[in-house]
């Protein structure tokens, strides 16, 4: 017997954080005008780039590791349904409960009901992209449940009523003076004599978080990896807050995108080398927590795993775009991207900013809902070189631009110009005539008319040459 589950759907509208309020160029313009933001970003990305570059250079087999990571991910995607069922079986056998969520609404409903069933009205959270993607904090708040972020940067963003702007360093756009202001204004019980010394700020956060850890009975986490073979969940982190959330509470709820699987325990070895070096520039991340179901008398006694689709099946169905699901959320592509470095993450309008966000977000939502993102790149290729699992982001960007153009019903000035240019270029005589016309054009050597005036706003067109190359050649 087979069950038809319907065509793969994209992430629903009106919930979660995958769609921006305005197109990229408009949002970017605001960020570009913020000098402080650009200094913070330039400094932070340059620092991470240098650190990561140095520890990657230590490994003689980095390229082989990248190839191994890429091959493992491709294999996982090819066998995803089978591996997910294996994961479910092993998590269940170990005493966990598996829930399947088709989209953000379903995932939020499942988690809310699970928290309600515990009788508690506060959860502590391990930093998780999946729960941000679905807007879980907002959903819990609407249900009267307080969600406290325990990752330091996430906490800064949450207390600042702000949005994260980087996958790994969500508060990358903030400097320490701004963080002091936020703590003074929003952190319960903070010392009013707080300075902006990093150690003092960290101590204030630690005091507040320790107390929260000790009096909260339910935790919500994401997962970096899930091992199908054993039913084991894995979280990598740097601060130890995750370890607290994963061990102290009575109930643990993990929300994980269906693509986070690795087939076997042994496969993890590759990713445990790739991720820290590519993301934080560390040889090994400080905390690697793994748990398999529940262990009587040790750690949470109730474990739930929510497997989230929210558009991923639709991405998997796209032969070119599916590589985006290989992403291990290291953010290396953000740190090397010249566009991200100047605009920051908010301009991308999604919890997934930078190059990977520019390919992942439009695929999860459908390209028409994020149509400006595939164009938010100069296709310089730095992201492809930096990606520890070799995702060919430039090719996916070009592919999605094609999808966007194909999906448009009516001709636009651009599509008419492109068709005319292609026709002209397919007819050499016409092309030569157009070259002469361009040379005689009243715009030559001056500012261009709309829609090209953006270019000549800050650049001069060179004066056209007296003759084209082909004219010169013909006279030789």
């Amino acid at each position, binding site marked *: 017997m087979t069950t038809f589950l319907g065509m793969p759907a994209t992430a629903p509208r009106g919930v979660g954080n995958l769609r921006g309020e305005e197109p990229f160029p408009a949002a970017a313009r605001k960020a570009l005008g913020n000098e402080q933001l650009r200094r913070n970003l330039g400094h932070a990305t340059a620092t991470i780039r240098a650190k990561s570059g140095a520890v990657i250079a230590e490994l003689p087999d980095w390229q082989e590791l990248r190839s191994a990571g890429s091959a493992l991910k491709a294999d996982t995607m090819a066998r995803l349904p089978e591996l997910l069922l294996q994961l479910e079986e092993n998590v269940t056998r170990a005493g966990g409960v598996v829930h399947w969520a088709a989209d953000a609404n379903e995932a939020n409903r499942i988690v809310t009901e699970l928290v309600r069933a515990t009788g508690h009205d506060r959860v502590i959270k391990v930093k998780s992209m999946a729960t941000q993607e679905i807007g879980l904090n907002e959903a819990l708040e609407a249900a009267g449940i307080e969600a406290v972020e325990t990752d330091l940067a996430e906490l800064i963003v949450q207390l600042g009523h702000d949005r994260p702007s980087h996958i790994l360093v969500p508060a990358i756009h903030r400097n320490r003076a701004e963080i002091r202001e936020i703590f003074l204004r929003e952190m319960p019980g903070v010392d009013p004599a707080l300075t902006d010394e990093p150690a003092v700020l960290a101590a204030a956060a630690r005091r507040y978080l320790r107390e929260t850890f000790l009096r909260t009975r339910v935790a919500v986490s994401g997962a970096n990896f899930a091992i199908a073979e054993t039913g084991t969940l894995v979280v990598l982190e740097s601060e130890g807050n995750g370890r607290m959330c994963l061990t102290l509470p009575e109930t643990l709820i993990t929300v994980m995108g269906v693509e986070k699987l690795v087939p076997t325990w042994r496969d993890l070895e590759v990713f445990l080398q790739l991720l820290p070096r590519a993301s934080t520039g560390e040889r090994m991340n400080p905390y690697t927590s793994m748990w398999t179901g529940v262990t009587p008398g040790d750690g949470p006694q109730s474990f739930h795993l929510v497997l989230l689709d929210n558009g991923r099946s639709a991405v998997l169905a796209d032969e070119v775009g599916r590589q985006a699901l290989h992403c291990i959320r290291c953010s290396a592509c953000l740190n090397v991207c010249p566009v991200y470095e100047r605009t920051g993450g908010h301009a991308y309008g999604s919890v997934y900013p930078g190059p990977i966000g520019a390919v992942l977000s439009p695929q999860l939502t459908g390209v028409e809902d994020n149509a400006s993102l595939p164009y938010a790149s100069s296709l310089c290729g730095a992201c492809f070189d930096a990606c520890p699992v070799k995702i060919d982001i430039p090719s996916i960007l070009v592919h999605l631009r094609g999808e966007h153009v194909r999906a448009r019903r009516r001709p636009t000035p651009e599509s008419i110009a492109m068709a005319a240019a292609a026709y002209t270029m397919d007819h050499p005589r016409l092309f030569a005539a157009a070259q002469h016309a361009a040379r005689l054009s009243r715009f030559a050597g001056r500012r261009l008319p709309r829609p090209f005036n953006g270019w000549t706003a*800050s650049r001069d067109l060179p004066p056209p040459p007296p003759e084209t190359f082909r004219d010169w050649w013909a006279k030789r």
Partner: protein
Amino acid sequence: MRIALFVTCLADTMFPAAAKATVRLLERLGHEVVFPAGQTCCGQMHINTGYSRDALPLVRRHVRTFAPYDVVVAPSGSCVGSVRHQHAALARSAGDGGLAARAEEVAARTYELSELLVDVLGVTDVGAYYPHRVTYHPTCHSLRMLRVGDRPLRLLRGVRGLELVELPAAEQCCGFGGTFALKNADTSAAMLADKMRHVLDTGAEVCAAGDSSCLMHIGGGLSRLGAEVRTVHLAEILAATEEP
């Protein structure tokens, strides 16, 4: 050697000096240069902007035009990148396996100028003379699509009288990116501003590159600033000699 020149639409129309210099240089080195009639554009602008359907006839034209030649050269890393990495893929996704196979053959025989000189013709000293202080911008597509590496720098180091100065953050994109500079003009301008600052910091008289498009962008910005630095294609430097 008989070498077919793929001039590129931009060099043909706006920067013929780069293409003429390519011809002069190769002829000086004792080779025969031919200019296949019927060539226009590789279709990169269409492909990269999402108009792959419009690009297909241009790919077909390019492949037909250059199929008869054993060696093809273009003074552009970007256009060679398109020929090498996009043409066959585009043909295949359009369901034309025959075109894809022919495109691969043409791509395997198509070289960017510094690749042709160093790898095929085996020269790094082309006998050029250019008594100026020069900095080199490697351009993203030469660097990452073609992996030309230090070939252009080796060629420049072989030029008599030339003082090569290192460009800070050389591997960062100048912000051109074809229609990116139109669609995201503000971000592009911010990237350009940093590139120009680095160029000016070198104190060079000339900023060179292997792509006319990037040079048009950087040169357009420098001109607006009123800066003295000139932008010159690598081919023009390599073609220069003591005779005027």
